[in-house]
């Protein structure tokens, strides 16, 4: 992701427009409830909101106090309460509890719920059930996209994946469609749209529907190509450990909404929140570098800085004056960032150069290449037994399952048993969910699979069958990773030395072990101008590919940045 250093790449559309739009709309919504009010914000909306409107903007529009939604009784003295939430039933129920408690206490307040990015009927029906439909006013803040950087925009909807792929709840599809529509209406028509995956196709259709509902004006296209890719097309990429600087920072400090909180280990003083984007010049240069290069770069940078500082010596008063007024501030800033990133790198070094991490990388690479699987399994076993990290154990298990097209029943059972003993029996549910998603499955004897397919096939005679099969697809789906990897040459041959300093392909982000499937797909489709020639690949990916010309490629919307 992030910046394209190529000189011939076209200029980026101005994504700050999205921010302005969202801000204006929020202000308008706040003004709709005149007078002082307390604002309750859902926890996962805090950071995105911060990027759109800061506290002083909110205060300007008569927001008195800010609270986080914590699902507890509230302690507000205001007569007007405003809730800024995602359309989730749980939150709405909590608001109902708040309102009902006030009623019982004989307290009169005004309540307003602002749903973002849209409201759902289900939420409103909760209000109705609780008899509060009239007491609580609702509104929508159509804040669909948050520009995280000059060239990354995100919907910031983490539950999309779970709802859509696990629960089969397609309510966000329309939201994604509206998002495309928003882009389309701001940045003009897209010249071409490519997509793969059932969900992408539905998103595309939903968007088309919305476009057709209104009259279109011909205008300059700022966005060329659009790619829609289902997450389940490429599970492998997010399952691998990242070894570029930005990825490691994310692993250790967690980047949220383009913002990272460096803990005390990385900085001398307490928590520092830093925005990580291309505005940060130091970060911008190292974010996509393999970690092994980062130190060299940073020390070079430090030397440059020193020379720049050293310029002071031998200056006369006048020169000194211009130096102080023009350069010093920039240098100071750079200095600060540099020291921050250096200490962050040190922390990363401490954690990641340990033997464990090295072995985990080795295991991942073996899994990707399909060598020494037994050793990998025993590594994973040990990993589970020693309680190294639950998430990483699961990640390795999933990677094993996907690359090996499911686990052997014997391994599946023993690994699962080990895991349950380590982390508790409640993870039976975790495994059930992973199985449902096709992330961690048992190898099926051939027959069972065809039985399932024919069952699905029988239902394929009415119109809705497409959607029906979708519900089963995760069950019937084979991951086909090996075949894909051969076809698209995703795993570079390991016998050659991989030069991480001058990478020859995208595999550098995984130390030369793997080229991300989604990126490879985009490359291939762009080279061919469509899916022709990739029939075998799309078949392996379960089909649902489409491309539409005459509409709108360049950036793709990162639903999930890993």
């Amino acid at each position, binding site marked *: 992701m992030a910046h394209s250093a190529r000189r011939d790449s076209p200029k980026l559309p101005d994504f700050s427009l999205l921010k302005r739009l969202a801000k204006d709309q929020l202000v308008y919504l706040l003004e709709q409830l005149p007078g002082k009010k307390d604002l309750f914000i859902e926890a996962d909306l805090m950071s995105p909101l911060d990027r759109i409107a800061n506290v002083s903007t909110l205060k300007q529009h008569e927001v008195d106090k800010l609270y986080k939604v914590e699902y507890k009784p509230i302690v507000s003295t205001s007569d007007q309460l405003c809730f800024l939430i995602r359309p989730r039933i749980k939150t709405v129920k909590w608001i109902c509890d708040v309102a009902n408690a006030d009623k019982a206490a004989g307290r009169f307040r005004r309540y307003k719920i602002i749903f973002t990015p849209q409201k759902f009927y289900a939420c409103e029906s909760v209000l109705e059930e609780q008899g509060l439909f009239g007491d609580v006013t609702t509104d929508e803040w159509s804040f669909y996209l948050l520009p995280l950087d000059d060239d990354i925009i995100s919907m910031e909807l983490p539950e999309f994946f779970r709802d859509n792929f696990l629960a*089969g709840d397609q309510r966000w599809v329309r939201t994604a469609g509206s998002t495309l529509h928003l882009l389309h209406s701001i940045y003009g028509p897209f010249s071409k749209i490519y997509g793969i995956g059932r969900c992408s196709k539905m998103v595309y259709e939903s968007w088309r529907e919305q476009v057709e509902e209104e009259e279109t004006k011909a205008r300059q296209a700022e966005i060329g190509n659009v790619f829609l890719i289902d997450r389940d097309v490429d599970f492998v990429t997010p399952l691998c450990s990242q070894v570029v600087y930005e990825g490691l920072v994310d692993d250790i400090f967690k980047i949220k909404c383009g913002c990272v909180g460096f803990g005390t280990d990385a900085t001398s003083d307490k928590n520092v929140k830093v925005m990580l984007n291309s505005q940060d010049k130091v970060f911008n240069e190292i974010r996509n570098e393999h970690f092994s290069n980062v130190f060299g770069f940073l020390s070079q940078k430090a030397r440059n800085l020193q020379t720049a500082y050293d310029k002071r010596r031998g200056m006369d008063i006048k020169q000194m004056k211009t130096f102080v007024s023009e350069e010093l501030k920039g240098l100071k800033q750079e200095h600060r960032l540099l020291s921050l990133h250096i200490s962050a790198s040190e922390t990363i070094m401490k954690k990641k150069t340990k033997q464990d991490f090295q072995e985990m990388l080795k295991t991942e690479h073996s899994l990707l290449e399909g060598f020494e699987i037994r050793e990998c399994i025993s590594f994973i076993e040990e990993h589970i*037994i020693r309680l190294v990290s639950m998430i990483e154990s699961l990640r390795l298990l999933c990677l094993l399952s996907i690359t090996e097209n499911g686990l052997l029943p014997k391994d599946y059972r023993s690994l699962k048993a080990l895991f349950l003993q380590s982390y*508790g029996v409640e993870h039976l549910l975790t495994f*059930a969910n992973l199985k449902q998603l096709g992330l961690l499955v048992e190898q099926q004897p051939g027959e069972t699979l065809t039985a399932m397919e024919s069952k699905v096939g029988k239902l394929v005679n009415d119109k809705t069958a497409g959607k029906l099969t979708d519900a089963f697809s995760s069950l019937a789906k084979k991951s086909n990773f090996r075949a894909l990897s051969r076809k698209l040459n995703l795993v570079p041959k390991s016998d050659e030395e991989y030069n991480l300093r001058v990478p020859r392909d995208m595999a550098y982000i995984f130390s030369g072990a793997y080229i991300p499937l989604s990126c490879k797909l985009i490359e291939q489709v762009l080279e061919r101008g469509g899916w022709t020639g990739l029939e075998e690949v799309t078949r392996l990916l379960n089909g649902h590919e489409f491309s539409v010309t005459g509409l709108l490629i360049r950036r793709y919307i990162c639903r999930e940045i890993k």
Partner: protein
Amino acid sequence: MSFITANWNPLGDAFYRKTELYDMCWNLRDSGLRDSLVAAAHYGGPIALLREPQRRSPSSRPQLEIYLASGISITSFPWKSGPVVHIGWTVTDELLCVQEDGSVLIYNLFGSFKRHFSMGQEVVQSQVLEAKVFHSPYGTGVAIVTGSSRFTLATNIDDLKLRRLPEVPGLHGKPSSWLVLTQDRQTKVILSNGPEMFVLDNTSCTPVCPPGLSPQYGSVVHMCVSFSYKYLSLFTDTGHLWTGSSNLQDKLSIVDTKKKTTPNQMVWCCRPQSQQLSVVLMWDRLLLVAGICGDTIQFPVDDPCVLVGELDGVRIINSTNQDLLQEVPLVCQDIFKIASMAPGALLLEAHREYEKSSQKADEYLREIKEQSMLGEAVRQCVEAAAHEYDANTQKSLLRAASFGKCFLVDFSPDQFVTMCRELRVLNTVRDGAVGLPLTHTQFKQLTLQVLIDRLVYRQFYPLAIEICRYLKIPDYQGVSRVLKHWASCKVQQKDLSDEAIARAVCVKVGDAPGVSYSDIAAKAYECGRTELAIKLLDFEARSGEQVPLLLKMKRSQLALSKAVESGDTDLVYTVVTYLKNELNRGDFFMMLRNQPVAQSLYRQFCKLQEQETLKDLYNQDDDHQELANYYITASYREKRLETRLSVLQKAVDEFNKAKNEFAAKATEEEMRLLRFQRKLDDEKGAGLLGLSLQETMEVLLSLGLHKHTEQLYRDFRLPDKRYWWLKLKSMAEKHEWEELEKFSKSKKSPIGYLAFVDVCMKSNNKSEARKYVSKVTPEQKVRAHMVIGDLEGAADAAIERRNDSEMGAVLSRCSTADCLLIDRLNRARVSASKK
């Protein structure tokens, strides 16, 4: 042409003219308009006649007739309801018939009954004496005065709110005259009772005295208000006509008409920017136009007629023809007045001479150009054309304008072009067959949209579409709208089969933008044609639109699948909620079963809202796996151990049914673990309950409960690896180094000995760690040495194993101080690579 001023009559400094609009096509037998209730709608709307409303016997009922403004009959039928007091038209061309008992019946243009409403219960007894239909910015209203002399108002019949006005002191029976006016957003009644006058509003009844109307003029017997509610005129029993503002603040004039009898009808005749306002009064034999300047014009009348006040004049309808009486617009005066020197007049003359090929044309043109008035002249001609009713006059004016335009540079042709188009449309709708005698001023006020609506109400669909296309109105507002109306009307044709109608609609409407098939289908359903509605819904491209109607028609299955198809989950959810209330549980679940999308949506909802339903849902589907998962989740909500165990037992049963032996066994073990933890918590207060097996053992070990640990190890058949790891960690943490050593020797370690080195180093015990380095397998030797920081040992091991990458790894850890070592390693590497 030259006689264009022939019908002009001077009134003060203005002129009034009477233009014939139509020879009426109707054939009103001998009685004509006499003995009928007549209602003629404004803006050239339809005319309704209720003939001989007094007739009440069943054998001879009054006849209700509806005509276009040109007298073409639309419908006629005998009146079978109660006695009618008053009839009037609404702004949307619907006929209101106010009955004596206070009920108001609404009919459409084609005489079909729409609905009715009542003006209040008390009216049934007291009866309506008089009623008036009036128009205000809020819509069409009805006012009545009852036998008990009370007034009741409904300001907007589409949003019925009855208002009973306060009592008028001293009023018995009906007042001598009254009317309704809208002022300052308030609807009031002005009435006269003998010598007194009152204004009635919502709360009060105020006596008023119009300025300058002293008692000597007698009492008011008739009154009327202007089209815009701006002016009021009062007629007294001494024959005087008082005119003034309708708020009774200013007087305009008092004119003596010298007629003592009360006029049959009195109507204001004015236009926007009138020079000379006037009131038209009509008696049996005389039509009098009384200007406020005091001048009058008289027209003889020999046939009973009806006056219709319009925005810019008065229509006079009698049994044979219809005229428009209006003040001649200033621009027409300027052009046509004899010997006028106005630029427009000169231009018209110039063009006339030009047509005759006379050089005089040039002279006239020069004259205009010298005064640089050519632009003005063109504008005048165009404007005058708008006000002329005769097509030839329009043409000559427009030709003159076009001629004048040729001599102008930079003159925008927009006004000219628009006018030509609009006049063409107006001339078409004025045609007797369409019968909408609109003036240009009225047309502008009415707007094109409304004109098209009116054509649509009259079912002139092709003409309406032609006009939309001709004036290039965007499809959404134009053609599509007309088609929608057409289709809604089409589906009501009872004589055609469903199939034929559906086909006809599809062919005509096609995929015109903005026409919603679901709306048309809704109409069909309203008319009781469910099958047709379903056929029409099939044409609807947006499946979301089909859903509400399908639900209404109780086609829930279809509605659900359409909702799913639409991809709009809100819609699916709506249908699901509806079905939930509508169907019994079994049917509801069965239906969901066939719609996985809807089912998963409903499950999501149940997970958050109705856990119990979720269980039923899984039960219905025999989904034992999910049911078991449900119990597992539920077990965590139970506080008491016994209930928790019983819930877990249910989970075990379900897992067994689902043939998931693994999960069943895991759950059973969990139950066993819980019991074990409970026992130990009771005995030793270890706080184990709820921990995982591993955590439990860790706690046990740290508490030194080795026997219990052993027991768990055996009971749960823990892998040796895990057991060794646990022991190892716990001993190292407690620094039990001797124990550790003993343990390492108890049997061969299943986890190797590197782990021993690691745990020792974690506690920074290098000497203990060293003990185990020798035991490590050859492959791990180098690593083991490096862990304890013994570079030399590592180097030896690596050299011994001749492993290049290991040597590299050791090299990378060497600092500059270890130059000897580096040297050795490098040499070993070289020799290793040679071999």
